[in-house]
């Protein structure tokens, strides 16, 4: 399809041709022509946000819960700079987002014009790729290319910066049919010899473990299915990073729980003591490995990743396989079946025996109370109330996020959205709104803390405007809890600026926005209050007053290996848990 139209019309046409149904944005001087073109169509629905950071997180929540590309439209200058946090978040968590930014007209670029900033310069390190379009005849191609780059290979955010004169100019529009990027052709199929070598190694393993990550989710539902099939066929245990939760069902007996800094004892011990580790779409992040030189010292490591730069970045692996998880797992299964692999049942039985002894430590246990709501208990009750529903969970960042990951089990991929890489407070509410836009009839809950929720709280107004009945479940402990916990660990319990002073009345705040506020402070009232929250078909801000001093345990203190975790039965006080060297780490 080739026809003449304005640059602004091309933007809308390209979105329609890319199958975009929803976009998240905020108007301003440099994008007015695009908003005008939007006015003349009704195929793409625009969700008006209250802050551009919220727009990008909504697009992320939309993308992660639906598997589609999230689309953002913001103006020049502050519109673009406000989007930077969201873009960086999407880059670190590999979320496909196309962000269109307005720019001052080309003849004013570089003159410090009103609302001008060097958008491509600022976003270069926080996008997978970005473009400044100076000629309207390049615009359609660039937009289609942006969608291609955002979702192919390791997904990520792409910015397209469009000067205002280019939006007004007329040019020739081309459809997406013949757009193939000339150089960016990520490899999907893994190398056959390495796949064979990996399967042979795996079949002979005595203490194997699958270490899976967000790459399994990003590869699509088929990847999760293949992972389950591989686990069933082999009988091997499975653990996952924070990003990969849901790819393997938490109810499965082969599930070890999450690994890493706040992972379970059994998952981390299995990682430490295994003889063959298969890393599937994860990246040996520092939250996962603990002390690098003591990370899984005795194992052979297989690493499946679509991004070659993930290989040998932090941990040297024995068999790297570059490719898409889905393709590689499929090929590995084919080889496994063809060679009629028979795992060493005796070795495996003794490995599972060991794992069961670790499990018996019950590393997620906590001292419950009938006087005060324990945050872990609140998550457990929330889970019990919604487990049979069609539910999507997002979180902010901090203690509540870890408790959600530990105590809210997931059975399916794409149900769990959290800011893993960047750790962005303020992520959860907009992400929940994005997920709710993608799934209007599902129950979407943002598990939050009273500090994080205040970072993008203005988006409650967006939820009200678009009838998006998201539920915000605030674990209110009146502290930036993770900061307080680390001040206990590192700084002698001197709580420098981590107390949530001058908190608003969250119930009145919800009502001021036009939503519903619920407060609960007693364990006995919790189930009823949660039911009330679920039954309301409007946005709810649930202020759950929890134990102020609870810490997230178990924990691998920074600078320690996997087999030196602090357990819930650790004697009072955390101040001796971290070495001087460990204190330097984050």
């Amino acid at each position, binding site marked *: 399809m080739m026809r003449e139209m304005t640059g602004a019309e091309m933007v809308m046409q390209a979105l329609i041709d890319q199958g975009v149904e929803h976009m998240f944005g905020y108007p301003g001087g440099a994008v007015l022509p695009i908003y005008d073109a939007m006015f003349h169509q009704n195929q793409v629905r625009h969700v008006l946000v209250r802050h551009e950071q919220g727009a990008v997180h909504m697009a992320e929540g939309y993308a992660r819960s639906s598997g589609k590309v999230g689309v953002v439209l913001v103006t020049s200058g502050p519109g673009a700079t406000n989007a930077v946090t969201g873009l960086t978040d999407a880059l670190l968590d590999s979320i496909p987002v196309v962000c269109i930014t307005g720019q001052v007209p080309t003849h004013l670029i570089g003159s410090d014009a009103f609302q001008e900033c060097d958008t491509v310069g600022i976003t270069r390190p926080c996008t997978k790729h970005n473009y400044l379009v100076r000629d309207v005849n390049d615009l359609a191609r660039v937009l289609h290319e942006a969608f291609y780059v955002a979702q192919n290979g390791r997904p990520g955010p792409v910015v397209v910066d469009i000067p205002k004169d280019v939006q007004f100019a007329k040019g020739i529009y081309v459809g997406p049919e013949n757009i193939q990027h000339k150089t960016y052709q990520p490899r999907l199929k893994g190398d056959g010899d390495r796949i064979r070598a990996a399967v042979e190694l795996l079949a002979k393993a005595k203490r194997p473990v699958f270490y899976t990550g967000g790459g399994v989710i990003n590869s699509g539902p088929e990847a999760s299915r293949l992972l389950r099939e591989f686990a069933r066929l082999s009988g091997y245990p499975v653990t996952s990073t924070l990003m990969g939760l849901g790819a393997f069902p938490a109810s499965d007996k082969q599930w070890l729980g999450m690994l890493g800094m706040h992972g379970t004892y059994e998952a981390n011990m299995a990682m430490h003591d295994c003889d063959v580790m298969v890393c599937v779409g994860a990246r040996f992040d520092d939250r996962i490995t603990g002390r690098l030189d003591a990370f899984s010292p005795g194992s052979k490591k297989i690493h499946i990743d679509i991004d070659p730069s993930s290989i040998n970045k932090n941990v040297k692996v024995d068999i790297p396989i570059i490719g898409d998880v889905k393709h590689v797992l499929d090929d590995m299964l084919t080889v496994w079946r063809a060679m009629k692999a028979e795992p060493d049942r005796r070795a495996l039985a003794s490995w599972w025996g060991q794992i069961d002894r670790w499990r018996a430590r019950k590393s997620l246990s906590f001292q419950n109370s009938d006087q005060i709501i324990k945050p872990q208990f609140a998550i457990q009750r929330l889970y019990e109330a919604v487990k049979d529903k069609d539910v999507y969970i997002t979180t902010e960042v901090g203690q509540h996020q870890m408790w959600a990951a530990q105590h809210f089990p997931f059975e399916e991929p794409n149900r769990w959205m959290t800011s893993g890489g960047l750790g962005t407070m303020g992520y959860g509410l907009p992400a929940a709104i994005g997920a709710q836009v993608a799934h209007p009839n599902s129950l979407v809950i943002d598990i939050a803390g009273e500090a994080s929720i205040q970072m993008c709280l203005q988006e409650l107004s967006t939820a009200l405007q678009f009838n998006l009945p998201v539920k915000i479940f605030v674990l209110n402990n009146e502290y930036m809890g993770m900061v307080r916990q680390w001040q206990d660990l590192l700084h002698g319990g001197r709580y420098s600026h981590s107390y949530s002073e001058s908190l608003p009345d969250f119930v009145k705040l919800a009502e001021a926005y036009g939503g519903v506020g619920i407060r609960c402070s007693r364990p006995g009232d919790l189930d009823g209050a949660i039911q009330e929250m679920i039954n309301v078909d409007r946005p709810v801000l649930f202020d759950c007053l929890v134990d102020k001093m609870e810490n997230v345990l178990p924990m691998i203190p920074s*600078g320690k290996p996997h087999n030196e975790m602090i357990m819930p039965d650790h004697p009072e006080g955390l101040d001796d848990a971290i070495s001087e060297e460990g204190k330097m780490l984050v």
Partner: protein
Amino acid sequence: MPPVNHEAPERHTLSLLVDNEPGVLARIVGLFSGRGYNIDSLTVSEVSHDSRRSRITVVTTGAPMIIEQIKSQLDRLVPVHRVVDLTVTGKAVERELALIKVRGKGEIRQEALLIADSFRARTVDTTLESFVFEITGKPEKIDQFVSLLEPLGLVEVSRTGVAAIGRGPDAM
């Protein structure tokens, strides 16, 4: 605790074929500074006007694991077509050009001219009290030339950085 890395640093010369589009150099340089890699030398120029390709030669130093990271990080940049490690693919030809200004009178001028001659440097500008020499060669040769001119009234040096190409009949 820094990552476990007991490997000795190595010097590698990388050749990149990139789209000659605005910002491509900033992308490359930003990657090096953002991730804390070293750039010892960097040269860029368009090599094919028709296909709008540029060739970038980067000389970098790092432990083998870091060099591998640098290559795969560069390779995943969208406008980067190819990354070739000329240090791995075999002895490459590496050349650099330098312009060197020397100021002096009398015997010192004679001495500078003699040294320039023995290094096969060309004199590209002459005044009664100065010379500008042009020299091409391996970076070490230029280092040596410059250090010999140092006591003879060296004023300033302008170097291009290394351009490199693999030996034999094949392209990168």
